[in-house]
């Protein structure tokens, strides 16, 4: 479904991503794990078209994304929940969700999906008229995810959904991710919480300073000694 070949990203003199190959098949949950600065978010930003690859190709369902603008990548069915949520403060929860469906024209479908998001995150319905900035961190994460789902994505990119959340909320967020996946959305998940990420992932890639150093199924990597030492604290 998503295929990345020899991706290179440079920010000025900094060579952040050095030739990465990565693949996500339809129906999978794939996770990228790695330390701060390994380049995980850069890859997601490149997929969404927020940064341009200096070399290499990204293709989605057979079409190259390299020359496609961010808004059209979104239209093709890729939604991203960015790191740090990036909800629109000063706008209500409902307006935030409506912006998620900005590209869609089918009013009836939007209404239905809004209902579905409210069912998945009942707290959002309760707070629908409230300024999104007044939500707690966990609620903001749910809003960001709900907003991305309003676009009805085929592929959902999640950047550090557990960041800054209490352990109980982390578990809740991950069970929601599994749920979204079960209902037919392919997920590419970037996480620092390697243990949780590997437990839900079909396959995983380990990133270090802009390179893939290991890849395999979630179980294989969770069992690997190197991964345990570096990321699972044991």
């Amino acid at each position, binding site marked *: 479904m998503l295929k990345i070949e020899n991706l290179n990203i440079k920010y000025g003199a900094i060579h952040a991503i050095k030739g990465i190959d990565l693949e996500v098949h339809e129906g999978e949950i794939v996770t990228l794990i790695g330390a701060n600065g390994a380049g995980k978010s850069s890859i997601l930003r490149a997929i969404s078209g927020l940064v341009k690859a200096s070399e290499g190709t990204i293709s989605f369902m057979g079409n190259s994304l390299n020359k496609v603008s961010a808004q059209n990548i979104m239209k093709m069915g890729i939604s991203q929940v960015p790191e740090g949520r990036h909800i629109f403060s000063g*706008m209500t929860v409902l307006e935030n969700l409506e912006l998620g469906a900005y590209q869609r024209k089918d009013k009836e479908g939007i209404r239905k999906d809004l209902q579905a998001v409210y069912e998945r995150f009942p707290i959002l319905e309760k707070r629908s008229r409230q300024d999104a900035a007044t939500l707690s961190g966990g609620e903001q994460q749910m809003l960001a995810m709900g907003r991305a789902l309003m676009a009805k994505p085929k592929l959902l990119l999640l950047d550090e959904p557990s960041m800054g959340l209490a352990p109980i909320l982390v578990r809740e967020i991950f069970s929601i991710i599994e749920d979204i996946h079960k209902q037919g959305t392919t997920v590419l998940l970037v996480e620092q919480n390697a243990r949780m990420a590997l437990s839900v992932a079909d396959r995983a890639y380990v990133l270090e300073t802009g390179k893939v150093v290991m890849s395999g199924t979630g179980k294989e990597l969770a069992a690997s000694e190197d991964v345990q030492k570096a990321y699972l604290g044991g």
Partner: protein
Amino acid sequence: MTLFLQQLVNGLSLGSIFALVALGYTMVYGIIKLINFAHGDIYMVGAYIGYMAITSLKVGLFPAIIIAMITCAVLGVVIEKIAYKPLRNASRITSLITAIGVSLLLEYVMMYFMGAGVRTFPDVMDKTKIEFAGLSITSAQLLILGTTLLLMLLLQFIVKKTKIGKAMRAVSVDADAARLMGINVDRTISYTFAIGSALAGAAGVLVGVYYNTISPLMGVTPGLKAFIAAVFGGIGVIPGAMFGGLFIGVAETMVGVYWSSLIKDAVVYIILILILLIKPSGILGKNVKEKV
């Protein structure tokens, strides 16, 4: 008391003009964090377009306002595309200096074509006075107040209810996140310039009717005062620009009447200094805090 109310009406009329111009400053700042110092000159261009529409095309006042608004909207979009867009990722001082350059360009191009002198704005409406409870309100004042109110309601509707308005707010909060929603950021910025410039164009025609004179440098001082109004209300905040404009207009008028008309301009600048010292985010502005 009657004198006070009379001056309040005069101040609100003047303030409406400032408010219309201030809205453009604040909207553009809100979306690309640029103080568009050419904005006062768009207002000047609006006055000249209105003048030409009335004298050459022989249209009435309202068609003239519409023509000025459309022309200024196009001008604003073109300026953004040519002068500011290439500098989107440059440092802010670069864009600011460019804006001053655009301002001078507009002023002197207008001088080249229309002459540096003051022109008399044609009489397009009877200057009747309406006496009401001891106050006298001119028809021009009613026109200014009515048009401003209408335009502000329209702007509120666009910003709050329409899709493009929501996109404008989303881009001004977080441009990257807006991109992730599939919003075309460049187009949204163009709309913002179009709307802000159209409001300035309308203000230009209204001021021509009110003061009867226009000149190529007429935008400098009102532009600066409208900028102060936007800062006073909280730059980037739309209701702040409306409030700030009206406040500055009333304050200037009151100082002129009750104190001395020599220092009324100074008072406006003192207001700027005070607000920057006491509440730099403006009366209706919020301090931005990021939640991590």
